[in-house]
């Protein structure tokens, strides 16, 4: 039987234009052998979820540095659930205060990475936690 390749959507929700982090993550994922769908800047939660469904990804990884994480990340999660795609995992990275992380996790964001995290750590987390759809 052929093997599944991990597919990840890397996206930037909302209005912040800082995509250095997203590009570094996309590249680290590529080097780890994943297929990365990069959707670019200024995406609405609806666009992100529709793209994730059409691309049949295992994981959505969002980079957010605008401070709007408490609004945008749970919104993405809710739309996933609405559209019957709650099985797609959601992960985030960016300038996110420690105090906000428990709330985000409670809202269904599987993991949150903050500045200074190595790409090895993030790739390792994906390998340990993402099982491609059967």
């Amino acid at each position, binding site marked *: *039987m*052929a*093997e*599944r*390749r991990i*597919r990840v959507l890397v996206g930037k929700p909302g209005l912040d234009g800082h995509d250095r982090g997203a590009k570094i993550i*996309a*590249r680290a*994922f*590529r*080097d*780890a*052998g*994943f*297929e*990365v*769908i*990069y*959707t*670019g800047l200024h*995406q*609405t939660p*609806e*666009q*992100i979820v*529709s*793209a994730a*469904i*059409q*691309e*049949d990804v295992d994981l959505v990884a969002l980079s957010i540095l605008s401070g709007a994480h408490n609004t945008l990340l749970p919104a993405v999660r809710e739309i996933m659930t609405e559209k*019957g*795609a709650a099985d797609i995992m959601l992960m985030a990275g960016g300038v996110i205060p420690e105090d906000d992380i428990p709330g985000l996790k409670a809202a269904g964001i599987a993991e949150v990475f903050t500045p200074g995290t190595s790409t090895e750590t993030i790739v390792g987390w994906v390998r340990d936690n993402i099982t491609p*759809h059967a």
Partner: protein
Amino acid sequence: MTLAERVLDGDIRAAARLMRDIDDRFKSAIEELKTLYPHTGNAYIIGITGPPGAGKSTLVDQIVSAYRKKDLLVGVVAIDPTSPFSGGAILGDRIRMNRHADDAGVFIRSLATRGALGGLSRSTTDVVNVMDAMGMDVIVIETVGVGQDEVDIVSTAHTTVVVMVPGLGDDIQAIKAGILEIGDVFVVNKADRDGAERTARELTTMLEMKHPDADGWAPRVLQTEGVRGVGIEELVQEFDAHHIYLKESGALQRLTEERNAKLFADTLREELFETVFGTIKGNGKYDQIVAGMRDKSIDPYSAVQEVMAGRAFS
């Protein structure tokens, strides 16, 4: 319900999953494709090819908008290269077209080449067939950024569009073999740049030197500015004209038959190899051959003839 039944029922997730099964070479996908095959053959398929950075994705984005204005359903298959080192890929064509993501009349799928060399991915035809069965009226395939010899798109699309930009080289580049022989429509994109007129004129001259087709389609050179949407209306009119020409001249039927024949041959090639290779690996013959080549008691050519004579495939 099977995935194929769900696809025919309009289930987007099922379609996306089936495309993944196809791409990951799951055996189960073959069964689903069997069910879908009778529902294919209705979509008009456009292939967009050209060098990296020519603006293919941006043009695709504009073409999608133009067809959506006509209320047609549009599928997009966008192909980007797989890293030969890690096997991973960054599929970035969506960046230019993701504004269509939450339009229910558009389905965009990114594919990685996964080692295929012709500018497409092995799964392209099957993924196009899924979109066709989903009821897409128009399917746009964007190849990887190609150089001179990646011409698989011709046998996959009805209309092949070659996108060029000003300043890529002199007119000798244009008379070498390769992608300039395959276009039904030529586009000089980024036409606001210096040299666009000249590039268009040189291309036109090259095309006029070609012996006219027996059945008479003369490719034209159009100019566009993808980012601002300039020239897109004319481009889509040219697609319509080519589509009508294909239907009226009988070329559409011929293309469809060639595409089916190629799909059959590709599938056969793959199945035969898997069956024969799997058999000889399983029964120890493969190890014998490798050992034989090591001590020179057999050469690879005789070994293949021996395997074929043994009919490991029947």
